[in-house]
Every structure is written in structure tokens, then in C-alpha cells.
């Protein structure tokens, strides 16, 4: 054996390398089968960035299908509810160019509201709602569970009497957010006082910093 290797160095090397590649190939092939990941993990991560309104404005029946389409190479600017923030996040995740939104941007988050006197109880909107946020029975008035509504507009079209409005999500005291200060060069709006210093000291300081 050793003699043969000594005699045919080139051939031995070729056999050895070929043997190794077969062995490792088999190992990799087995591992690929054994530890196969069913779903594309990228799809999950894309899906997590989408706003989950399930509105179908992207042309796909829900956010997950759109996430799958993106992972297959579809463009990332088809999600109006997500807006620029979602496009930026997707561009960041996928390393693609952030393109402007395809379609009209949506401003404030909205919820559906059924004008209950006009509702005829046809259940069409219930069937259209992707998140089961509409409550009601045949020939009885329907109503929207505002907390569950994603504002997808899918219930508007099927309604035969056009009794559904999209209204802004109600903004109460909790929804107010303190604004970010304007930055250097601006006088802060006094949300927080914290300037309990004697007047002279800060005028001199200001002069000093200007001069």
C-alpha cells in the first residue's frame, strides 16, 4: 500500500482528495436533509417588520404572503400602512435600496366604524375582515371591535349600503407624545422647567459662549 503510494504520488493525491470530497459531500448532504429548515427564516424576519394590517394593498392576501414574495425578490415599497418607516427597515434588513412608497401614503392609523342604524346585517363585512374584528349575526346589526381593528379597509367594498367609515384611532391623553426639542439654536419649549438658575449667571454664560 505504502509502496504504491510512493510510486504513484500524483494518483494517490487525486484519490485522497476525491475520497475526502465524497465523504464530506455525503456528510453535508445528510446534514442538509437531517436539519432542514422548513420555512425560510428571512420570511419570518420580513414578516416581523410588516405592520400586519393584512390589508392586501400590496396585491398579496396578507402580510406573510407579501413577506414570502419579498424574499423571492419582489419590491419592498408596496406597503402603504407601513409607510416609509417599514420600507427603511426592510431596506436595512435586506440590504436593498430604499425606494419611495408605491401608492398613497396613509397618515394617521384608522379604525373602521359601522354606522349602526344603517347596517342591514348582511355579514359581508364579517367575512371580509382578516382579523375577526367585526361582531354580528345575519340580519342583526354589526359592530367593530375597535381594539382589534387594523384599519385595512377590506370591509368597505363588500358593504352593500356603504355604512362603514374609517375614522382616526381615538387619541386620548395617553396618545400625546412629548415632541423632540428643535435642537441647538432654538429656545426650548418649556415642557420641563429645570432652569432654576439666577438670571445673571446664564446671561453672562451665553455671552461667553457667543464671544
Amino acid at each position, binding site marked *: 500500500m505504502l509502496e504504491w503510494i510512493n510510486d504513484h504520488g500524483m494518483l494517490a493525491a487525486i484519490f485522497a482528495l476525491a475520497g475526502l470530497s465524497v465523504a464530506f459531500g455525503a456528510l453535508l448532504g445528510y446534514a442538509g436533509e437531517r436539519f432542514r429548515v422548513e420555512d425560510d427564516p428571512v420570511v419570518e424576519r420580513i*414578516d416581523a417588520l*410588516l*405592520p*400586519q*394590517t*393584512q390589508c392586501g394593498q400590496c396585491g398579496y392576501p*396578507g*402580510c*406573510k404572503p407579501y413577506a414570502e414574495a419579498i424574499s423571492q425578490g419582489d419590491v419592498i415599497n408596496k406597503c402603504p400602512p407601513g409607510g416609509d418607516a417599514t420600507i427603511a427597515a426592510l431596506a436595512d434588513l435586506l440590504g436593498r435600496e430604499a425606494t419611495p412608497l408605491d401608492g398613497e401614503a396613509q397618515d394617521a392609523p384608522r379604525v373602521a366604524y359601522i354606522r349602526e342604524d344603517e347596517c342591514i346585517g348582511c355579514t359581508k363585512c364579517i367575512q371580509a375582515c*382578516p*382579523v*375577526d*374584528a367585526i361582531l354580528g349575526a345575519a340580519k342583526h346589526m354589526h359592530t367593530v371591535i375597535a381594539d*382589534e381593528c*387594523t384599519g385595512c379597509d377590506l370591509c368597505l367594498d363588500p358593504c352593500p349600503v356603504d355604512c362603514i367609515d374609517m375614522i382616526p384611532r381615538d387619541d*386620548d*391623553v395617553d396618545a*400625546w*407624545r*412629548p*415632541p*423632540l*426639542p*428643535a*435642537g*441647538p*439654536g*432654538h*429656545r*426650548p*419649549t*418649556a*415642557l*420641563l*422647567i*429645570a*432652569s*432654576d*438658575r439666577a*438670571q445673571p449667571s*446664564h446671561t453672562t*454664560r*451665553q455671552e461667553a*459662549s457667543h464671544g
Partner: protein
Amino acid sequence: MVKAFDFPGGIHPPARKAASTQHPIATAALPRRVMLPLGQHVGQPAEPCVAVGQRVATGTRVARAQGLISADVHASITGEVIAIEPYPVPHPAGLNELCIVIEGDGIRDDWALLPSLDWHSAADDTLYARLNASGVVGLGGAGFPTQVKARVRERHAIDTLIVNAAECEPYISADDMTLREHAADVLEGARLIARLSGAQRIIIGIENDKPEAISALNRAIAAANTETVEVTLKDFPARYPSGGEKQLIKRLLGREVPSRGLPADVGVLCHNPGTLRAALQAVRDGRPLVSRIVTLTGEALTRPGNVEARLGTPMIELLAAAGLDEARLARLVMGGPMMGIELSRLELPLVKSSNCLIAATLDELPPPPVEQPCIRCGACEDACPAGLLPQQLYWFAKSREHDKAELFNLFDCIECGACSFVCPSHIPLVDYYRAAKSEIRAQAFEARKAEHAKHRFEFRQARIEREAAEKEARRQARAQAAKRPSGIAANSTTPVPGSTGRGHDQPAAADTDLKSLRIAQAAAKAAVRKAEKVLARVSQSTGSKGQQQGQSDGEIEDLEVQLATARENLAAIEARLAAAKDAAADATQEPAPQRRSPDTDQERTP
């Protein structure tokens, strides 16, 4: 320099408390009209339980607590409910909130008191119920419902009750005056709360610039029967913000409250003296929270001092009674000059968390100077009492790098304003942090909502699939039932469409079909078990811990939806499996379809 127990940083702003401590606490005149906002506390706003036109006595409940963290609201004067409408309330942005407006005649004051309780002998549940029914909330400024705080022993072991009498913020003297005049009540209230929370000792933490309050407390401690629980008074030099809950605990006990945790996590409960007095009054006198002691101060007032005023009283009435000179008034601040909010109008109602009103002149609290660029001097880091890096947080907040801000523990910032105070560039640092915090919270809320919608959508998909599978199974069963008798009777002469078409390649395909369905069934069963396990674990851990009740409730709901989705998936697969089994059984029972298949093929081809 640093003592064994001390917190880092801190500042020494001018105290300016002397003006309001010259006179004893006065009682404000009974207002003719009060406006009672429904959200005077942390948590969900209360729900009105009176109608417009209804007559109420002082102390009648007018709004009921909603949800886990909420508090009742009580009528603070005798009169008639004239409106339940949104009105401006004390809020940094001057927003409106639903208020109950009561009009009286300014003279009559009939009280609707609850029966008196002896807290030594009453059962815990009775006391909790009483605190709940009295609408007592933290009067130090945060407004956390006291009853919720008192129940803390259900989840944490508490060993120490701290009475937070530090009152470190300039101008405010409400707690100081409360202690000078009602030290015995505060002490008894503390012993009541200590009993409810299971604390074995009470520590009163007070800054040593309040000698009168300290001597009053010493007298009260000496006079009180302190056999059951040990009461100690600890005074220390004044330094802002030693009244911060976490800073005070560090200073008194040397314990550090964990990041994003509660004092209860280290076995401590903190209460403000005013809150303790209100709790005692609720229990001993059956008196709901309808008034509070508020400091009226500032150089625009000629008679500054502390008054006990009814909640909902328009601030203008209180200020006018204290001799407000409107010409000199430059800004009205609710709370202290460090953490308070500036109010845009004088007609706002006094609320449970209004501990101080500062009617300041222009010289006294000048408008903030123009913000200059950060020069990275690091003064803010020396001042920060939470040991954070305010400068870094400022950059991250400014550039909206929220993940980095969170990494630098933005949420441990107590918004005390010490960093803004020392900043030589006059950067309103805390405004940046507040903006960043609320943005992060809003994002987290949206993310939770999206996650929730996703689970509901998945559930709906699973349900639709299950319904379709069941329908298909039923249809197949019907077709089989229809075929069987006819197949036996007519014996292959009349092929039944549909079922025979399916039966064509069944034996081979059905086997693999069955196999894959069985695998799917096993996977679905595993998914159901996993969902059940996660749900059980989470509901158990929240039962024993449950800090942020509202949030974990949402989490549990979401997990329940996920479990239901898994069950729907399982049901769908089982329905399909049953149908496939039936079909397979049929196919093996009678080999007829196989024999018949060429016929059907021929039939179909033309």
C-alpha cells in the same frame, strides 16, 4: 466624600421653601364649582357613575375605577352634577379630558361618609376594599393607586416601609407642613400600610432642612405605641433628588432597585406622608379623598402658604385667595420647578397629583435660554443620580437611535432634570429623553398590536382551513355512503362520478397521503402541546409576579389565540386524515374502483 449609603450625582438648587412655611395650613374657601377629571391617577381613567342633574353630597362616588390599575373619583363638594364633558386639565400639552362638573352654593357641605373602621382589628380584605372605595392615590405627584400598592405583598415579600418625606424639590413644602401639623396621623397611616404590606419596620426619610417637621415626628414617635413595628427617623443633608424613590432607598438602606424594576423587588415600599394621612382618613374616618394639601408659592403671590383645598377647585380661585398679582405672573407651574409642568391657563382644576402651584415672576423662573451645541463637558454625568450617561443618551435620542438609547438604559432615567440643570449649553436634556421614551413606548405598542393582529389573522386562516377540511370530509363521506350501496347493487355497471375518479389512483397515493397526514397530525399535536405549555408557564409566572398586569394580560390573550390556532390546525388535519382513512379503507375493501378505473378513464378522455 461618598458615604456608605449614598446615590451618585445630585445637585443643590436653591430651596426657596421659606416663603410657604411661614403660616400654618389654611383651609381654602369652599368652591362653588368643581371640575373633576376622570384620569387623576396612573392607569385607566375612571368611568362616570352619576348622571347630569343628579344631586351629590361631598364624598359621593361619581366615577368608578376601571381595570386593574385605576381609582375612584368622589364628589368634592355638595351640589348638582351639571356636566360630564371634556375640559382642559393640567397636562403638558394642555389637552382636554372628560371631567365631571359639580355646582354647589359654596355654603352647604353635607358629607357622605363611609362607616369608620378600626385598622387594628379589621380584616385585610376590608381594608383593601376601603382604600379602593376611597380613591386614595399617591399624593406625591405620580398618582399611583394606593390600594394596588398596598396589595403588593401578594407578589413580593416586603420588609420595610419608607415614608418619603425628603421633599427635595425646591418650593414644595406640602409634606413638610403636613408633618408639622399631622405627624401623628401620618405615623398611624404608615403603621396601617405597614400592617397591610407586611413590613416589619418603618423608616422615615427626611432632609435635615426641615427641623420643625423632624421634631414633630420625634414627638409623634415617642407618643405612639410602637411595639408592633419599629419606627426610625433618618435625616440627611438636602440634595436633589434624594426624594426620588430609588435614590431614597439607596440612601436609607443601601439597596439598589434593579433596572426597570420596582422598589418591591428589593422588599421596600415607599409612600408619601400625604398619601399615608389620606389612607388613614379613609379607614379611620371613612372619608374618601376629596381634598389635598397644596403649596401655593411664587413671588407673584402676596400671601404664599399651604392650603387644604377641595379637588377640582379652579386654580385661579386658590391663587386669588393667596393674593395673586396677575401683572407680575410670568408662568404658572404645577409641581416643582425641576419636574413640574407649565400650565397655559389659570382655570384648570386642582387634581390629586397637584402638590404645588408656583406662580412665578419673570425674574424668578426666567424662560429657558437658547439651546447651544453640546460641548461634551461631562457635567451631566457628574449630576446624574441614576448613574447614567446623559450625554450619550442625548446623542442617541437626538438621532432617534432608539435601540442604542435603550442599551444605555434610557428607561432608568427618572427625569429628575439634574442634567438639564447643570448643562452649560442649556440643553433641555430631559425633554429629549421624554420624547425618546415615548417614541420607544409607542413603537413597542404598535409592534405588540401588529403581533396580535398577526395571531388573529393566523387563527382565522386556520379556522377557514379547518372548516374547508371538515366540509370536504363530510362531502367525501356522503359520496362514499352514496356509492357503497350502489356499488354493491349495480356492481361496476354504473360508475359513480367523483368518488371513482378519486379512487382511480388511490391505493398508492392514499398511502403516501396518509403518511404525510399522520406526520402533519403529529406536528400539529406537538404544536398544541407546546402552545399549552407556554401559556401555562406565562400565566403562572404572571400570577406570581405580574408587575405590568395590563401588558401580561395582552400577552396571555395572544398566547390563547395561538393555542386556539394550533387546535384549529390539528382539527383540520384530523378531519382530513379521517377522510383519507375512510377513503383508503374503502379502496382496500373493494378493489372494484381499480378494476373500474380504465372505464372511467376512457369515459373521461373524450
